[in-house]
């Protein structure tokens, strides 16, 4: 290709790049900005002005204060954090333990156990909810943080496979030399395997947090009590109580949206790594 046409090509694709870029940015941010505008307007102002106009007073936090109090957003945040923390703790411990055993040991029922996990992975957890509902009642977990926590821990089979892939790459010689030094299997797990799996844990944990924070299905079904409302379910009950007050509704939406945006900004590196590695490796 000649120098001139190369240059023309890169100018063209630069235009296409930024054209696309700007279009996407507008599509993504406009709906969010409109809600931000609405959240700072009084209800009369919202009714009287165009939804695209800027609020007259950017310091009008009344809607936020009302949504925060009446929506019980702090309690929602607390429950969401508890749910994420509990599930992650269980997930990480059980996931690494399972992967360690299945990757490093041979035993009689190993094939059966692996086949069961594979089978369990194919079943979309969500379709079996009708039957699981009875189980949760039977275990007396209904209306407790325990119900979603146990479900999030028990139904995440994917992470076991990710951990197993990681373990493939960790040399068995490490285990063997530790054995020679007299370390027990538990010691090897605690001091060698678990720490070496931490990078995988970070990525998996962040992605899992996103999944849990976005799930309403399980939280809504098993925790109807107001005391147990999480951020999203708090917003749902706030909306059903205040459906006519659009400006407060906008503020409520922002109060639930903001923590997730902050989480995304802080952990974006892990989120991208997790998604992109998952797509091309394995």
């Amino acid at each position: 290709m000649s120098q001139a046409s190369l240059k023309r090509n890169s100018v063209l694709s630069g235009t296409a790049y930024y054209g696309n870029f700007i279009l996407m940015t507008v599509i993504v941010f406009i709906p969010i900005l409109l809600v931000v505008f609405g959240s700072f307007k009084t209800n009369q102002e919202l009714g009287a002005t165009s939804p695209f106009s800027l609020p007259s007073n950017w310091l009008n936090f009344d809607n936020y204060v009302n949504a925060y109090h009446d929506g019980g957003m702090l309690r929602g945040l607390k429950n969401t954090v508890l749910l994420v923390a509990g599930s992650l703790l269980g997930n990480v411990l059980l996931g690494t333990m399972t992967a360690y055993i299945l990757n490093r040991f041979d035993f009689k029922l190993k094939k059966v156990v692996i086949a069961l996990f594979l089978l369990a992975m194919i079943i979309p957890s969500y379709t079996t909810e009708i039957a699981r509902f009875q189980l949760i009642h039977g275990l007396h977990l209904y209306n407790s943080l325990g119900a979603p926590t146990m479900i999030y821990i028990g139904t995440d089979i994917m992470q076991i496979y990710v951990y197993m892939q990681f373990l493939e790459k960790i040399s068995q010689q490490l285990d063997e030399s530790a054995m020679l030094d007299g370390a027990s299997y538990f010691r090897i797990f605690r001091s060698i395997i678990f720490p070496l799996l931490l990078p995988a844990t970070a990525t998996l944990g962040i992605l899992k947090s996103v999944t849990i924070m976005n799930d309403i299905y399980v939280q809504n079904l098993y925790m109807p009590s107001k005391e147990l409302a999480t951020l999203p379910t708090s917003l749902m009950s706030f909306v059903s109580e205040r459906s006519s007050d659009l400006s407060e509704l906008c503020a409520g939406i922002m109060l639930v949206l903001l923590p997730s945006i902050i989480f995304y900004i802080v952990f974006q590196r892990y989120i991208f790594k997790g998604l992109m590695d998952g797509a091309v490796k394995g």
Partner: protein
Amino acid sequence: MNNLLQQRIIIFSFLFIPVTLMLLFLIYPTIQLFHYSFTDWNGYSKTMSWVGFDNYKKLFFDFPDAWKAIRNNGLYFLIHTIAIPMELMTAVLLNRTLRGSSFFRFTVLMPYIINGVAVGYMFSYFYNPINGPLNGLLHALGMDALVHGWLSDLHIVNYSLVAVSLWRFCGVHVILFLAGLQSVPADLYEAAQLDGAGFWKQLRYVTMPGIRRVIEIILFLNVSGALLQYDIPYVMTGGGPGTASSTFGLFSLQTAFTFNNYGLASSMAVSLLLLIIVFSSLQNWIIKDRSEK
């Protein structure tokens, strides 16, 4: 301690809880689901009677609402499928490091990460019939004929919801395609260029084979995502007006928890489960690489 004994102890103690949880929360409910689907259970009675395939017969031949719901899933699937080539092209265009590319990646993935319930209500506001932004925009552009009740009109509501689904999920597909594109070695393109392959030929013979795995993943996500679609209609319309915007999953839950017909709901869930397995294996079979044989 004897080594073999130690091995047995650690295998048992490490696997006991995870295997129990898996059996309890996944395998057991699945078996129960199949069981319920052959009964007339209402969800609270102590007894239930075996009705054979009656629930399935009703589902297939005498339950138009369920068929309407699965058609709605089909709409999500169809429109998302049409969007896939555009997602790929976007990723191809963006597969370079120019100024601002990290901000761009951030923006594209954002709809997928931020809270889904808040996103649902955000679009409810956007579609609001009274002074909502969409109708406001149409009015300002002088296109009052296009002003609609976006979530109340039976013929439009599903399209409005699919648009939200596109907003939420297209970005993650673009990012997955990007990951695939970046995993194709650059010298393959150089070699193809030396052989005189232009943009389209490179796309066909270098890019597409190189990102086959990503394509598989996206097609799978597309099928399961469309079949399991639940939160957008649940949050925004509750499946309404009537059952116009219900999806199969949402409708099966309503059948169980609202109408207390667990038997019928279970037969719906079983069908959904089988559908997902059949569709995704079919899709994988269709795009399987046969050149290696």
